[in-house]
C-alpha cells in the first residue's frame, strides 16, 4: 500500500517544512517514504510543492499522481487538479476558498477543514495552518499522531516546551476535527506494528555525501553557495567545528578549488562542491590539480543549463562537461551515485581514489538527489566500515631521509610517493609548469613525453579496480535499460511495480555509477547479451550513449530522454518502454 501526498501553497507557507515533518513522522512509524520538491528560484511568492510518497513496503521513487492533496491555497488545486488519482482525498481550508468535486477530472473526496480558524483558536497564527493540516492528514490515513508529536519535539525542542506544546495542540486540533467530522477518513490507511519500527534515518543525498566525506576523514571543504549543493554546504558548515574540519566560504569558485588544492598539497583530504556554473570557474583549477597530481574531491550537483538555466530544477546534462573539463590530458575520475547509500559509499571511495591516484575525482549528482529526502535504515550507513587508503603518502621518517624529495619520481605505475610540506626535511616543489622528477620546470621534449605518460599511466592503473556494474532484475529481460546516477530510483520503482503486476520479465536495468574509469569489459559483455537496449537519461543528447560507444564500441540507438527540469516519474518510463514492446 502506498500513498502520494502533495502539499502545495505559496512560498513562505512552510511547505517544505511540512513535507519534512511528514516524512519524518511516517519513517519513525516504520513506513518507507521519499519526498521530492518543486520550487521556483524565489524567496517569497511563487508556488511551492512538496510530494511525499509513503508506503508500507520498499519504494524507490515518487510518482506524478496524487492520492492526497493538501491545498493551502486555491492555486494548488488549479495547478495540480489533473494529477489527482481517482478517489483522491483533497484537504483544504473550506473557509478560505471554495473547492468543488467538478474542479477535478476524476471523482474525488473533499475534506474541508477550517485550518486558519483552528490555528487561531489554538493559539497559533495563520502561518501555522500547515501544522493543523498535518494533524488532519494523519487522521485521514489513521496514522498514530504520537509519531508526529515525537518529531515535533525533536524539531522544535530547542525553541522551548511552549513551542512544542503549541505545535502539538495545533496538530491535534486538525486530527480531532477529521475524526469528529469525517470519521470514515480516507479509503487508504496505514497500520503500524511495533515490529516495523526499526530506526530509520531521513536524509537527502547531500547529507549522505557530507557523511561520506566525514567518514573518509575530510578535513577541508570549500564551497561557494549555489543550488543544488547548498544542502551539503549547510550540513557541513553546521557540523564542522564539533567534527574537527574546516568549511570555508570563499570569494568565488576559483578560490574554492585553489584553496582545496592548497589544503591537499599541505596534506589533508579536501573537497569542493558546486553546480555547472560554479564548476565552469573551477575548470582551470581542475587542470591544475591534474598537473600538480594533487588529490581533490569535486562534488558536482547538476541543474539545467546553459548559463543560469533553471536554477532549482534537475538534470543529467553535464556528463561530458566533467569528463573533459580542463586543459591538457590527465586522469579525471568520475563517480555517479544513484541513491543515499551510493552517495555515502562513492564519496568515501572518491577520497581514496583521489589520494591513491593523486588526481581530481568527481562525484556527479543532481538537484533531484541533492534535495529529495529518503528514509533509509540507520544500520545501512551506521554499520559500514569505511576504509581510508591514502596511497603513496609518505611518512615523515621516510620524507626527511632526503634533503630534497623527488615529488614526481617516475615509477612503474605512474604514481609517485607523495611528501607534504611542514616536515623537518625532504623539501620539494609542486609545479604547474611541466616539470622533472624534482618538480623543477622543464621544456625538454623527451622528458615532457615521459611525464605525460606517467600521469596517464595512472588511468590504466585505476581501470584495474573498477567493480562490475549491477544489473538489476532478471538476466534475460525483454528490454535492458541503461542509466546512470539518479535514474536508478525511478527505474527500480518501475521494475518493482512491473514485478508486482507479474511483468518482472519485461525490464532489467544496468546501473552505471563508475563513469571514469569505466567498467568497459563488463558493460560490453552485459550489453552483448541484452535482447533490446534502451538508454535512459535526464538530458537531451543521451550523453552516456557516446561514452558507452567510446568505451565498448557498442552503439545504443533507442533512448528515453527527459530534459524539462523534472526527474523521471515511473509511470512515464513504463509508457515509454511500452512503445518499444
Amino acid at each position: 500500500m502506498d500513498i502520494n501526498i502533495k502539499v502545495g501553497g505559496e512560498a513562505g507557507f512552510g511547505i517544505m517544512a511540512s513535507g519534512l515533518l511528514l516524512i519524518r513522522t511516517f519513517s519513525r512509524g516504520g513506513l518507507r517514504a521519499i519526498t521530492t520538491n518543486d520550487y521556483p528560484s524565489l524567496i517569497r511568492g511563487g508556488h511551492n510543492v512538496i510530494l511525499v510518497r509513503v508506503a508500507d513496503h520498499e519504494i524507490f521513487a515518487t510518482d506524478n499522481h496524487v492520492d492526497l492533496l493538501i491545498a493551502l491555497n486555491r492555486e494548488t488545486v488549479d495547478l495540480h487538479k489533473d494529477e489527482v488519482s481517482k478517489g483522491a482525498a483533497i484537504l483544504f481550508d473550506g473557509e478560505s476558498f471554495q473547492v468543488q468535486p467538478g474542479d477535478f477530472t476524476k471523482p474525488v473526496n473533499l475534506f474541508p477543514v477550517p485550518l486558519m480558524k483552528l490555528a487561531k483558536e489554538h493559539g497559533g497564527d495563520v502561518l501555522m495552518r500547515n501544522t493543523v493540516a498535518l494533524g488532519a492528514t494523519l487522521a485521514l490515513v489513521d496514522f498514530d499522531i504520537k509519531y508526529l508529536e515525537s518529531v515535533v519535539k525533536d524539531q522544535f525542542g530547542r525553541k522551548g516546551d511552549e513551542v512544542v506544546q503549541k505545535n502539538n495542540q495545533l496538530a491535534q486540533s486538525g486530527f480531532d476535527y477529521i475524526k469528529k467530522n469525517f470519521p470514515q477518513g480516507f479509503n487508504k490507511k496505514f497500520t503500524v506494528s511495533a515490529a516495523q519500527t526499526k530506526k530509520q534515518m531521513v536524509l537527502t543525498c547531500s547529507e549522505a555525501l557530507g557523511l561520506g566525506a566525514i567518514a573518509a576523514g575530510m578535513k577541508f571543504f570549500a564551497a561557494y553557495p549555489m543550488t543544488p549543493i547548498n544542502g551539503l554546504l549547510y550540513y557541513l558548515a553546521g557540523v564542522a567545528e564539533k567534527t574537527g574540519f574546516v568549511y570555508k566560504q570563499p570569494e568565488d569558485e576559483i578560490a574554492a578549488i585553489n584553496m582545496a588544492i592548497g589544503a591537499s598539497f599541505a596534506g589533508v583530504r579536501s573537497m569542493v562542491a558546486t553546480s555547472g556554473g560554479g564548476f565552469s570557474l573551477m575548470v582551470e583549477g581542475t587542470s591544475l590539480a591534474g598537473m600538480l597530481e594533487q588529490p581533490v574531491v569535486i562534488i558536482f550537483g547538476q541543474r539545467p543549463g546553459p548559463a543560469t538555466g533553471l536554477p532549482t530544477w534537475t538534470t543529467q546534462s553535464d556528463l561530458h562537461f566533467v569528463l573533459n573539463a580542463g586543459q591538457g590530458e590527465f586522469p579525471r575520475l568520475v563517480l555517479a551515485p544513484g541513491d543515499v547509500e551510493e552517495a555515502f559509499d562513492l564519496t568515501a571511495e572518491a577520497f581514496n581514489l583521489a589520494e591513491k591516484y593523486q588526481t581530481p575525482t568527481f562525484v556527479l549528482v543532481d538537484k533531484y538527489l541533492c534535495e529529495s529526502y529518503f528514509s533509509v535504515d540507520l544500520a545501512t550507513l551506521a554499520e559500514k566500515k569505511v576504509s581510508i587508503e591514502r596511497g603513496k603518502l609518505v611518512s615523515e621518517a621516510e620524507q626527511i631521509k632526503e634533503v630534497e624529495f623527488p615529488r614526481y619520481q617516475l615509477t612503474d605505475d605512474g604514481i609517485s610517493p607523495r611528501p607534504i610540506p611542514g616536515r623537518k626535511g625532504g623539501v620539494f616543489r609542486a609545479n604547474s609548469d611541466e616539470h622533472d622528477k624534482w618538480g623543477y620546470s622543464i621544456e625538454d621534449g623527451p622528458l615532457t613525453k615521459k611525464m605525460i605518460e606517467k600521469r596517464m599511466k595512472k588511468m590504466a592503473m585505476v581501470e584495474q579496480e573498477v567493480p562490475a556494474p549491477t544489473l538489476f532484475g532478471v538476466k534475460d529481460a525483454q528490454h535492458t535499460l541503461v542509466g546512470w546516477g539518479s535514474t536508478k530510483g525511478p527505474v527500480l520503482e518501475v521494475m518493482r511495480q512491473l514485478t508486482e503486476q507479474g511483468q518482472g520479465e519485461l525490464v532489467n536495468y544496468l546501473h552505471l555509477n563508475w563513469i571514469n574509469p569505466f567498467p568497459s569489459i563488463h558493460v560490453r559483455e552485459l550489453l552483448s547479451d541484452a535482447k533490446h537496449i534502451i538508454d535512459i537519461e535526464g538530458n537531451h543528447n543521451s550523453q552516456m550513449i557516446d561514452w558507452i560507444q567510446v568505451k565498448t564500441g557498442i552503439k545504443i540507438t533507442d533512448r528515453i530522454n527527459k530534459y524539462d527540469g523534472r526527474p523521471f516519474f515511473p509511470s512515464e518510463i513504463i509508457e515509454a518502454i511500452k512503445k518499444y514492446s
Partner: protein
Amino acid sequence: MSTIADFKTAFMPNWCPGCGDFGIWGALKNALLEKGWGPADFCTVYGIGCHGHMVNFLKSYAIETLHGRPIAVAQGIRLANHKLPVIIVAGDGDTFGEGTNHLVHIARRNVQATMIVHDNQVYGLTTGQTAPTAQKGFKTKSTPAGVLEEAINPVAIALAAGATFVARGFAGDIPGLAKLIVQGFNHPGFAFIDVLQPCVTFNHVNTYQWYREHIYPLDSSHDVTSRAKAFEKALEWGPKVPTGVFYKIEKPTYEAQTPQLNEVPLVEQDLPPKNLQTLMEKFV
C-alpha cells in the same frame, strides 16, 4: 643556522641581466637568513610570471600555482597547517589582473601570510604588454597609443581591503627590502609588500634611475597605526613616491578565530573523526 647555500638549487636564474627579480630574490634570501629559517621551515607559493621562475632558484617547500591564484592556494595551505609559515610570491598581473578578488579577501580575512608583489608595471614573461599598475599613457605592445586607464594603486587597495600590514619596497634597495620582508614575516596576520621593480627589457620609463630619483623612505614621523595617514601617503605618486611601512596594526587572524585550528594543525589530526555515529543518529 641556515646559510645562503642551503637555498641554492642546481639552476641559475634565467631572468634578464639587471632584472629587478634578482634584487627581490636576494632580499628574500637575506630576510630568510635574518629570520633564521631554513628551506624546510616555510612554504613558498608562486604565481605565474617572470617572478614564478623563482620556484627553480630558491630551494624550499614550494608550489607554483596558476596565474592569479597563489593567494587562494596559500590560504588552503594555512588552514590545513596553520603552523607552517607561508610566503606568497606573485606578480602585478597575478595580484591586480586575474587575482584582485583574492587579494581583497585575504586582506579582510587576515590570514597569516607574507605577500611579496613583483610590481614592474608590465607583463614581462609574455613579452611586454601593459600591467594593471602601468601609469596612464604608458606605451606597450598591447597599448601602442598608451594606456587609457588610471593605474591601480596597490598600497591603497590593500589598505582599503583591510590588510593589517601594508608596505612598499624597492628591488634596487636589497637591505631595505630585506628588512621589510622580515617585518612581514614577524607580522601576525596578512602582510602585503608591493615591490617596485624595474623591468629592464620592457619598461624604459620606470628604470633604476627613475626610482632612485623619485622614491623616499617614510620616516618615524609617519604614524603606522593610522589608516587615514596611510591612505594619504598611499596617494602620493609624484613628484615623490614613498617607500617603507605605511600601515601596521594587530587584529586576530582568521586561523586564531577558527576553533578547529587549535594546538594541533588539521594535517596532524586523526581521521576519521570520532563522532560519525552520533552524526548519523541525528537523522533518525
